[in-house]
């Protein structure tokens, strides 16, 4: 199959959806002529014109306001917030508007919008360009959240998100943009709400997403040489997440490690943990462990930033601890 980068896969998804449905439009800062700060929307302005590829001023609240209003009026906006850290500036529109529209209108209106945004550390961009907002949005009924790790899934999940009638926060990890992978040319969807077992194993289950999937796979590879067989689950959709795949794995392994690069306290993965606790307690052979970023802002200097991020060593240690528990 043809290979594409993660960024180009997203671009292709946007292009194909805009081609398919003229209610789909793209909006954000510098998304038009320039094609976005990370180049993801390149070519769309030329092909679909000013009307459907809208540059805005630095006005994040307005970007989401327009998306919400337009979605209520029947369009299907795909809004870009340049860095996930800036989503704080349109937090109100997402929490109090997008998430609640369907409820407010008593089911007579939906809010089919996608907010694409760029998250993650490792870019040496310091604490205002490195965050991951998952947990900020998890206690807000009404929102979907998607976070792919491969170009194939990025394309399929974005198409599914655009076609979904719920507001979807679509996270793109900045360090994955250049990663290459096989991507079908024709439009296709990857089902929202389905995780994927990226490696099978019987000794413990690692549940993670985005860039951390690769770290988990590396560790799994390494530990398999020592006879420890890890199962690695890529969540892909953070909400609604895939209980079945998770539970099936735990029924088999009885041991769980959750990895996520946001800070530890209040981390997104706590929800996965508590759900497992509630419904799979009798299968647990060891405490559910989480390996996360530190409880600090993400510092600039690479030495500091690397220390912030979960590393192989941290994972290996925890795996050994629970496997021997």
């Amino acid at each position, binding site marked *: 199959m043809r290979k594409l980068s993660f960024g180009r896969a997203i671009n292709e998804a946007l292009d194909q959806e805009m081609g398919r449905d003229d209610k789909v439009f793209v909006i954000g800062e510098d998304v038009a002529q320039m094609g976005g700060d990370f180049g993801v929307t390149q070519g769309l302005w030329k092909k679909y014109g000013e009307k459907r590829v809208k540059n805005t001023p630095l006005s994040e*609240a307005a970007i989401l306001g327009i998306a919400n209003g*337009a979605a209520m009026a029947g369009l299907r906006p795909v809004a870009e917030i340049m860095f996930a850290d800036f989503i704080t500036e349109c937090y109100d529109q997402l929490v109090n*508007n997008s998430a609640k529209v369907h409820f407010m209108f008593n089911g007579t209106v939906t809010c089919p919008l996608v907010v694409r945004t760029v998250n993650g550390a490792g870019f040496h961009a310091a604490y205002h360009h490195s965050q991951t907002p998952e947990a900020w949005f998890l206690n807000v009924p009404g929102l979907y959240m998607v976070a792919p790790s491969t170009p194939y899934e990025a394309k399929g999940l974005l198409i599914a998100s655009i076609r979904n009638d719920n507001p979807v926060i679509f996270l793109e990890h900045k360090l994955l943009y250049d990663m290459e992978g096989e991507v079908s040319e024709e439009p296709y969807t990857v089902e929202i709400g389905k995780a994927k077992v990226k490696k099978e194993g019987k000794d413990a289950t690692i549940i993670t997403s985005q860039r951390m999937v690769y770290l988990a796979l590396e560790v799994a590879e390494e530990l398999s040489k020592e006879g420890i067989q890890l199962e690695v689950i890529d969540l892909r959709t953070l909400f609604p997440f895939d209980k079945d795949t998770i539970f099936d794995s735990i029924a088999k392994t009885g041991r769980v490690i959750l990895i996520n690069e946001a800070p530890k306290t209040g981390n997104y993965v706590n929800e996965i943990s508590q759900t497992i606790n509630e419904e799979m307690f009798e299968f647990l052979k060891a405490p559910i462990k989480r390996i996360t970023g530190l409880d600090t802002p993400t510092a600039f200097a690479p030495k500091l930033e690397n220390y912030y991020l979960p590393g192989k060593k941290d994972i290996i240690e925890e795996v050994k601890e629970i496997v021997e528990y």
Partner: protein
Amino acid sequence: MNLSKRVLKELYYNMVLIRDFEDMVDKYAKKGYIPGFIHLSTGQEACQAGVMLTLKETDYKFPDHRSHGVCLLSGTPKERVLAEIFAKKTGISGGRGGSMHILDIKCRNMGFNAIQGANMVTCLGTAFASQYNNTQDVTAVFCGDGTIGRGEVHEGMNIAAKWKLPIIYVLVNNEYAISTRVESVHSYPKNLSDRAWGYCIPNEVIDGNDVIAVYKASAKAVKRARDGEGPTVLELLTYRWQGMFSGDPAAYRPKDEVKIWKEKRCPIKRLREKMISDKIFSAEEVDELNKQSLEEIEGMLKYAIESPEPEPQDALKYIYAGKEVEGR
């Protein structure tokens, strides 16, 4: 431009209806029929009646928290507006929203968002959709003087102007936010809406208790918007007779201030006197309208009171499109 008898009658009737509605809501709130808190627009009827009569059902409306009248006049079954306020299952939003959240997509009442200022950017989206779909529908957004403090006002006006969006900003300046007078917390030239100049948006300052003036100014703004000439700010100078909410003693404002507005500047009395002195209507005809309004209110009230409450499980509906939520 002289208004037709039909228009005058509608303006008058609609103002009276809003007044009677608010009085009734106030009374039933105090009697304990209405949960939560209620913002009444008594005294501001001309703003709502005047603007609403210039809009079509396909135009988008964003009422603010003090806009029962906007909701009543938008085309929704009126009794279902009241039922919503009464927290009934038959309420237009199923009793989920109440006084602050009365929405009806059928007549494009997009509802009030109780986060003040939020609608000032959401309204861009419906206006954009009209432009995108090349319809002539306009978007009217109601906003108080206090709400002008919020950042969305700026983000919104800049983009509305730049994109020439078909928006009518109805800035209802009733001199107070909650306890703060407009000039005590805002810095502006002569009028609050003069700031529109900074975005190249025309603004007009109007006696908001003169329903004819409001109607005419709004009709002009709507025409501009429909013709693709972009947004207009209408600043309507008015006053709320009640406190911030039903039951607020409003100790923060002088008693005679209220008195003057009630006695000398009542928008309804004013139109009534004009219609009679201009000999367009007889006093009896006008009285008849007042009577009709009370009858209409009676009907709504009966409906609201007799309607059933929602079932607990109704709370679980319509959280997600196509996905259920767990109950208890």
